[in-house]
């Protein structure tokens, strides 16, 4: 697809009108890129068949900047929703894809985003089966917003529910935390600093599938700590299960450069957003085997057990600090704010 041959450089209000310009945009870019039997019907929607229970998850992506180190809004929109479906213990199959574009978006930027959506969808084995494109006036959006809804078939062995979590269950995380948030932070206006930190955006659905194949209902929970970070997700779980959670600071996987960047900006990595990270809570007798399986997958090389479920301090997450103290880990309240000094 060559942006120069399309006959337009930017997306304008006409591309969202529903008329010939919309058709042109869809035919030349969307249908061409995502061509599949469902989409090629060019109907108002698609009809699909599932053989088991289905898991559905939706998410809107409004990230700024839309291109960042390690990815862009397009692949984020696929991976984010694919992972959310996987966290339900399901195998993601289909995605809907809706754009809200601010007029004036450069067409080559749009094409770049669409191409990464295609790549990410192929990598996770999902098809785009329905979608929508709207264009809003300049100033009423922020270049581009994307909404995706994912549909997946629940894995036959899965029984994912906080109700299954027991005292003694282990909490395992698949790798370094805080990479995505710090990559974005390093490129925000006014906060720019030089770093090579890249977003960790990726799909983890195949690894989740492997874990369910192997361990079935001994896996009690999957959760991806995106916005709000690890701290917020663990706090939510502790409240939901009415039990305590204890984690160990020196086990939290944190890459050196990310740790240093957090330190400089005065941010706590436990609250920084992740994209390709998930935690799983599993029965203690399979914990070692789970870790071994995950470490053998390239999406889980740095897998580690960070803590467990306890019968004390109900509803709270307590962290054993590296120097032998304890502190409560509370959920994030508003946005994490950089400190003065």
């Amino acid at each position, binding site marked *: 697809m060559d942006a120069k041959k399309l006959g337009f450089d930017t997306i304008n209000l006409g591309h969202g009108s529903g008329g010939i310009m919309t058709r042109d945009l869809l035919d030349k870019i969307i249908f061409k890129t995502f061509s599949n039997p469902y989409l090629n019907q060019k109907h108002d929607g698609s009809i699909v068949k599932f053989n088991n229970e289905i898991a559905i998850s939706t998410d809107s992506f409004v990230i700024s900047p839309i291109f960042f180190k390690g990815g862009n809004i397009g692949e984020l929109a696929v991976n984010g929703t694919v992972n959310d479906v996987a966290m339900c213990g399901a195998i993601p199959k289909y995605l809907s894809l809706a754009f809200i574009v601010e007029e004036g978006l450069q067409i080559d930027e749009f094409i770049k985003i669409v191409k990464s959506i295609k790549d990410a969808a192929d990598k996770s084995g999902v098809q785009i089966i329905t979608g929508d494109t709207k264009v809003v006036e300049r100033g009423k959006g922020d270049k581009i917003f994307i909404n995706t809804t994912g549909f997946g078939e629940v894995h036959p062995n899965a029984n994912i529910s906080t109700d299954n979590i027991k005292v003694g269950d282990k909490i395992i995380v698949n790798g370094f935390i805080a990479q995505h948030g710090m990559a974005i932070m390093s490129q925000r206006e*006014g906060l720019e600093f030089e770093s090579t930190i890249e977003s960790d955006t990726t799909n983890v659905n195949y690894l989740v599938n492997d874990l369910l194949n192997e361990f079935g209902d001994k896996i009690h929970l999957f959760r991806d700590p995106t916005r709000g970070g690890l701290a917020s997700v663990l706090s939510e779980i502790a409240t939901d299960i009415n039990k305590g959670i204890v984690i160990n600071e020196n086990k939290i996987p944190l890459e050196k450069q990310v740790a240093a960047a957090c330190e400089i900006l005065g941010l706590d990595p436990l609250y920084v957003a992740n994209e390709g990270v998930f935690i799983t809570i599993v029965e203690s007798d399979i914990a070692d085997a789970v870790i071994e399986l995950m470490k053998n997958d390239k999406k889980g090389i740095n897998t580690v057990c960070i803590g467990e479920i306890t019968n004390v301090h109900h509803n709270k997450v307590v962290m054993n600090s*590296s*120097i*032998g103290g304890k502190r409560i880990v509370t959920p994030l309240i508003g946005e994490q704010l*950089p*400190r003065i*000094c």
Partner: protein
Amino acid sequence: MKYLSEYRNLEATKSYLKLIENTITKPWKIMEICGGQTHGLVKNGLLDLLPDKVQMIHGPGCPVCVTPLNLIDKAIELLENGVIVCSFGDMIRVPGSKKSLLEAKANGGDLRILYSPLEAVNIAKNNPDKEVVFFAVGFETTAPANALSVLHAQKESVKNYSILVSHVLVPPAMEAILDDEFCNINAFLGAGHVCAIMGFKDYYPLAEKYKIPIIITGFEPLDLVQGIYMAVNQLEKGIYTVENQYARVVKEEGNLAAINVIQTIFEIGNREWRGIGEIPNSGYRLKKEYQEFDAELKFGISNIKVPENSECIAGEILKGIKKPHQCSQFGKACTPQNPLGAPMVSSEGACAAYYHFSTI
């Protein structure tokens, strides 16, 4: 040197805790001046590891917490009148008399969160048809960068840039605390970063006059336990002098280049402290020859005055007379989501530190 690991070393920390325990015979109250130190103590769970005889009192060294209500209202006034207001991050959620900067932003104000005031000068250059104000909050630590932004703006003839000055100084605050009739503090941990800029010569007369040990201390767990040990050691021996625990960063004379920049544009004047009131000669104001950069004068907002919230005991917290959990509003009417006062908002505020990290 691996600052992040070596100063958070379990064994080294334990050995200092042991030393403190072996040295101490009487109960002592030690105030850490800086909010960063409070944060370090609480976040690492150090308060529970210290011997019972050591009681840490949390000091006023949180710049956000001591910024008076009327300055926040002034910044909001500017924001609501089309001025681009630039601020450090933790200032924006602090409630003014009616709302916070964050709420004013939601209502359409152009608020930018920055790490460096020099960035604000760039914003002014890029928006020549707008006025740009940097909310120059902080202790001596942030003063050099804020001063430098004015010098840059002057050098590059950026006429649409000014600063809303709210600079406060540590030594006068220490003296105000010591002069308070309820003061029962036996030793200070001096604020390491402030001393990195200013040095610590000013502290000798304080230690002498009030017969109180002052240990210039860093922020990592090992710094803190070592600082506490040095304080306990002096107290037990009955001596009182200034010692520098944070020698890897702090020199006695401070950072002369930074001091020079500060003295070029600022002069010392009276300042109001939130919850404490006006302390003589406790802050910086712009010198006469730099008054064109004074946002209060430029926009005629010097006369905005508002009373402090009577339900908030921030003053007593900042002077170390009360602990956060001794406040009847703590965790009830006052939470980080709905703060009555600044110490509950800022990450360095004693109330927020207690709310987030301590008491299991």
